[in-house]
């Protein structure tokens, strides 16, 4: 009997689904609630669920004994209960290598656009009303060379941002408990020992971390108060890393100079959300990882991971390996050599 894959996001491109169909039975559905999803998984006898941002809860995991693999379509797995999956010996797979370059470029784009007041100058050019001499407001554009960027997280994305930032002649400080002094030095980055202390030195602060219990709301009222008044804040990782109400207050009270945000507590942003009314922020609709054609690349990569895992090959994309090893339920394919 061939393996069964249930795709529960409607925006997975056909190329990925065709790849799976070559050797699996595939069913696609979308927009179902928790109960209906449990029913569908059990009814279909799914070995694999393939999700984008749809939540895979502990209850779903415990109620569906046929599940062996949960595949997500991007890097972040905060919508999946990885602990519960590990308890059941279920492997959680992601797509780690398609989007980091794009996310790093988006981060740099936001940093540049904030410094050069992109929205304001574009509006002044296209709406007119600018007469020589230019009003003083234009002169608040900032030079970047010689300023300091503070990064939280030096994973795949953080390292790429650091490298690009160094090319802009920024000084880069990074906070990451899991990356050694030596590795940071090799990258030309200064290691911060304390996040709160480093915040006060930075002209730019950018987050590149997964959202977990420990990192949720790592930026709150106290942290924004510790930042310089003329500093910019950037978040292209996950909305809940930031206490959004505190950020809005910091922006409204000019405690910080501006923000570049790709992710939010609630997405899509509701109409008239306070962030959408601020002039000193640059927003984007959770598209930092996106480029033309990258969704097809990601779907093909995800499809291949699923096929490898089902065929006993290590796809190299296992997210909850440590948890699985702790529970002693590491699937056979994970012990094999990485593809």
């Amino acid at each position, binding site marked *: 009997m061939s393996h069964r894959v249930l795709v529960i996001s409607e925006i997975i491109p056909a190329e990925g689904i065709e790849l799976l169909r070559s050797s699996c039975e595939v069913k696609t559905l979308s927009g179902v609630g928790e109960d209906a999803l449990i029913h569908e998984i059990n009814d279909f006898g799914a070995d694999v669920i393939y999700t984008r941002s749809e939540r895979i809860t502990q209850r779903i995991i415990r109620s569906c004994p046929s599940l062996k693999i949960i595949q997500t379509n991007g890097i972040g797995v905060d919508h999946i209960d990885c602990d519960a999956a590990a308890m059941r010996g279920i492997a959680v797979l992601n797509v780690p290598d398609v989007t980091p370059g794009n996310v790093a470029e988006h981060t740099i784009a936001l940093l540049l656009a904030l410094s050069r007041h992109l929205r304001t100058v574009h509006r002044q050019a296209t709406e007119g009303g600018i007469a020589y001499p230019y009003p003083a407001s234009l002169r608040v554009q900032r*030079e970047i060379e010689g300023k300091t960027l503070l990064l939280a997280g030096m994973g795949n994305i953080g390292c790429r941002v650091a490298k690009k930032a160094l090319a802009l002649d920024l000084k880069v400080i990074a906070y990451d408990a899991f990356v050694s002094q030596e590795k940071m030095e090799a990258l030309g980055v200064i290691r911060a020992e304390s996040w709160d202390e480093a915040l006060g030195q930075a002209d730019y602060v950018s987050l590149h971390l997964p959202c977990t219990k420990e990192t949720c709301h790592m930026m709150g009222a106290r942290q924004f108060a510790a930042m310089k008044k003329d500093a910019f804040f950037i978040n292209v990782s996950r909305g809940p890393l930031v206490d959004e109400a505190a950020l809005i207050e910091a922006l409204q009270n000019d405690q910080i100079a501006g923000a570049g945000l790709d992710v939010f507590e609630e997405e899509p942003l509701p109409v008239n959300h306070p962030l959408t009314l601020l002039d000193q922020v640059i*927003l984007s609709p959770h598209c930092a990882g996106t480029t033309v054609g990258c969704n097809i690349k990601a779907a093909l990569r995800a499809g291949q991971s699923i096929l490898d895992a089902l065929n006993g090959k290590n796809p190299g994309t296992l997210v909850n390996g440590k948890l699985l090893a702790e529970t002693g339920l590491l699937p056979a394919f994970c012990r094999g050599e990485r593809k």
Partner: protein
Amino acid sequence: MKKWCVVLSNPTILPEGIQILSQEADVFVTQGPDEDSIIQCVNEHQAQAIFVRVEQITRRIFESCPSLQIVQEHGIGCDNIDLDAATDHGVMVLNIPGGTATPVSEHAVMMIFALARDLLRQDSNARQGKWPVLDKERRDVRQVSLEGKNLFLVGLGNIGRKVAHKMQGMGMVVGAYDQYLSAQQMEELGVRKIQTLEEGLRWADVVSIHAPLNDETRHMISTEQFRIMKDSAFLINCSRGGLIDEAALYQALRNQEIAGAGIDVFLEEPIDPERNPLLTLDRIVASPHCAGASLESRARPAIRGAQGILAVLHGEMPQENLVNRAVLERARRSVKI
């Protein structure tokens, strides 16, 4: 009365510069930016120097102002000054080389990234609660990666070099067209020398112009040049408006012969959006000639210009800030060599 007299043809030159001048010279501001006002003011005070911004310094001014020895430009570009006339009348034209290289290069790099990441349109999408990433067909996705793509710089002076350095670090392959630099000089900067403008335009994913405006460079990018560029290419101009044929750029963007443009300088400035159809296009990132502006560089040209004027008045030989070298043959002011 002080030993010297300096005339400002623009009232916006900042007090930080005027303060330096005032230590040794009387400083006067012209009634207006026009030829007659400048001539009247220089002659009334028998001024040795004019500190100019964008005002036209014509042959008639040089002919009518025998006291004039120095014209100090407030930035790099001297296309507003009749250099031949200055040389003919023994007047030194000074500029401020490299003074705005940092903000201009950062502005150009910002425009490249803003186009590649489609920032303005995505900002507007997000503000309207539109999440195009949730559209399965992704018809509305335009973002492209810059890594591994080709950047073609037209001109590799102070600004072009800074742009090259930054974009090499971003993973772009950088090539440049600059008659004044050899392949070996470019190689030392990690830049590939491109022999002709046409070759570079065919090769490039991003074209950024960092050249002065003169008779040779005027309209260097026009209909024919847009035709040979990739339809996915971006064009950046933070140098001078006349370098690009604006009507041809408008057509090229409308016909999708190129994918986008970042423009800080226009043929007619200040910009009148009603009269410039370029500004109605959604594949353009525009700014009102402010690439050189920054908080940090705000007073820099005023200070360095004031210092440049005083140094020459003291008889010092100007360095790389002398624009019309030929004037040394017949300068009204003798300098120590």
